């Protein structure tokens, strides 16, 4: 059954949810405005037509009550259901952090392994659309810091489909962070589950390894073209796809070849997951590096509204080019 279709990411996610509701009787979808907004699929269309096919029992519109929605999803997951909860923007998860961090992430452990918690929280992060301070954050680092959570950051439509299948099949609570800039990007979808903890090589190269996710993969790919044509630098790009579990092995394999590392993420750079990556690499493969590794990340600011301000706080194609050249020890204005 090797079917491949070109789909946009929202459509790939919609297909994943459709297939999950079809073959997983324990699964259900709920969230604010998931059946009646726009064309009937929530703010980015991801839940489109699901209510028509599966009914309002398994595809539930909810009140604006993030705290109880999150904790109720956890309670349902502890009782044998597989809830897929959409939180409209990742910024809104803060209203229900108790359910995520004190309940979902700890229930298996605190209770000595008695409970599975097959809870999936779908939401989106990322800036770039002028949604400003409270609709644009990249919060993956916060979730990746919490023992007990799995954190998924799909960068392509095919990965979005495959990782969603794995998330719902997983008996651990999973934070599934989509990126609002990528919903309309198209790519091949092969409808096969993607295992957690296996990075994807987004581009082969030999001189510098860039570890990046989502929008930063796109910008790194653009930067790599310029670096190849103008600077004769060959960039390898690794997309970890899940931040926990985390595929350090693929990074080490790549660095053994390139001997240079840059991590680029949209999450705030300070205390960000890139620091974890760089520190782990330093501990495990120091001798494989020919130069100090570098990090690029969001500024230590909220995301501003006005376009030039917003562009200034997130790594750009140019800043990635400059950072790659700096890692290579030849700082040149791009």
């Amino acid at each position, binding site marked *: 059954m090797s079917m491949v279709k070109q789909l946009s990411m929202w459509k790939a996610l919609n297909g994943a949810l459709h297939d999950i509701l079809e073959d997983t009787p324990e699964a259900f979808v709920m969230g604010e405005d998931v059946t009646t907004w726009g064309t009937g699929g929530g703010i980015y269309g991801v839940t489109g037509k699901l209510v028509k096919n599966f009914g309002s029992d398994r595809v539930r519109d909810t*009140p604006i009550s993030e705290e109880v929605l999150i904790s*109720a999803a956890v*309670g*349902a997951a502890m009782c044998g259901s597989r809830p897929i909860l959409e939180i409209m923007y990742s910024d809104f998860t803060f209203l229900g952090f108790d359910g995520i961090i004190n309940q979902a992430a700890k229930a298996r452990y*605190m209770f000595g392994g008695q409970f599975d918690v097959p809870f999936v929280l779908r939401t989106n992060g990322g800036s770039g659309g002028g949604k400003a301070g409270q609709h644009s954050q990249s919060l993956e680092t916060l979730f990746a810091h919490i023992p007990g959570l799995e954190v998924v950051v799909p960068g392509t439509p095919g990965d979005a489909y495959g990782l969603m299948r794995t998330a719902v099949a997983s008996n651990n609570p999973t934070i599934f962070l989509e990126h609002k800039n990528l919903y309309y990007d198209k790519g091949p979808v092969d409808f096969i589950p993607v295992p957690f*903890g296996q990075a994807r090589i987004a581009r082969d190269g030999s001189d510098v390894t860039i570890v990046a996710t989502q929008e930063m993969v796109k910008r790194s790919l653009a930067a790599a073209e310029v670096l190849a044509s103008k600077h004769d630098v060959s960039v390898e790009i690794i997309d970890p796809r899940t931040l926990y579990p985390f595929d350090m092995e693929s990074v080490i394999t790549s660095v053994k070849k390139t001997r240079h590392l840059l991590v680029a993420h949209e999450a705030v750079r300070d205390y960000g997951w890139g620091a974890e990556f760089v520190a782990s690499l330093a501990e495990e493969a120091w001798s494989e590096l020919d130069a100090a590794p570098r990090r690029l990340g969001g500024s230590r600011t909220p995301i501003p509204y006005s376009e030039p301000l917003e562009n200034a706080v997130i790594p750009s194609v140019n800043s990635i080019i400059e950072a790659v050249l700096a890692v290579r020890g030849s700082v040149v204005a791009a």
Partner: protein
Amino acid sequence: MSAYDAKKHGIAGLRQMAMIREFERRMPLLAEEKLIRGSTHPSVGMEAVAVGVSLALGTGDTIASNHRGHGHCLARGSDPARTMAEILGRSDGYCHGKGGSMHLAVKELGILGTNAIVGAGIGLATGAALAATMQGRDSVAVSYFGDGASNQGVLAEALNLAAIWSLPVLFICENNHYAMSDSFEQMVAQPDLSQRGTAYGVKSVNVDGMNLPKVYEVAAEAVARARGGAGPTLIVADTYRYLGHMAGDTEIYRSVEEVQRWRDRDPIAALVAELTEAGVLSETQWSEMQTEVADEVEAAEQFARNSPFPDSAWATTDVYEETRS
């Protein structure tokens, strides 16, 4: 629903209440002996609520408890020995010592855990009720919380969600008049907490939480309504904790006289009087029952004291389904 029957519910309830009292009475002593780490919150005085509600529940029902939750678990049928072992952090505890008093769950009894976050069980129980509905199971979920938790926002959200979806959930508010040291009178402007439910379209009742038959009756009615698809009920039980919030509580916020006034309305003494009056309990039977539960709890304590501490290798298991390193 089955109506309150002194012979059946009264006698069974009395035994459970006496057992819980004997169990909880030992908590401050074990804490003093440093056998209990951290905080432990005994429920002495509040037994009629946990027992009255539990008598109305059946197999397959779930409860989400709070920080003062030993009584809820024991009333639901948790083994006193394994419960005590968990509180003492031992390997034979229900959670192998990983949870302790405030994180104590028994999956096979539908106990989704005591909980150290005030109000958190409200959302979990709402979800348990949702799961039951989704799975077509005829079971109800119970959330136990206190007057302190009534001021958490999640209660408002949960009451509304349960109401619009007609979820089979019982919100049991144990108003014991103090949230740690803050009095109910000081922290709540509208003293009739049942109005919180009414405001959201949830059937809401007040009950004397020192009276087992009355608690049983309102709980049984709420369970019947929930199973019948009529949705949630908020039950506000007026009750009192005789001991401090936890070991070491100076109790400067209340008077000895106030505590005594509530002790004079003791739910166990009241039930004994009622059952004796009704001719279903003799003095000898009551005295035998007390000896029996004291022996049972003593055996539980000895079991817990003798249970080995967990192997330190267990500290890193059960984080994920397959623990990743």
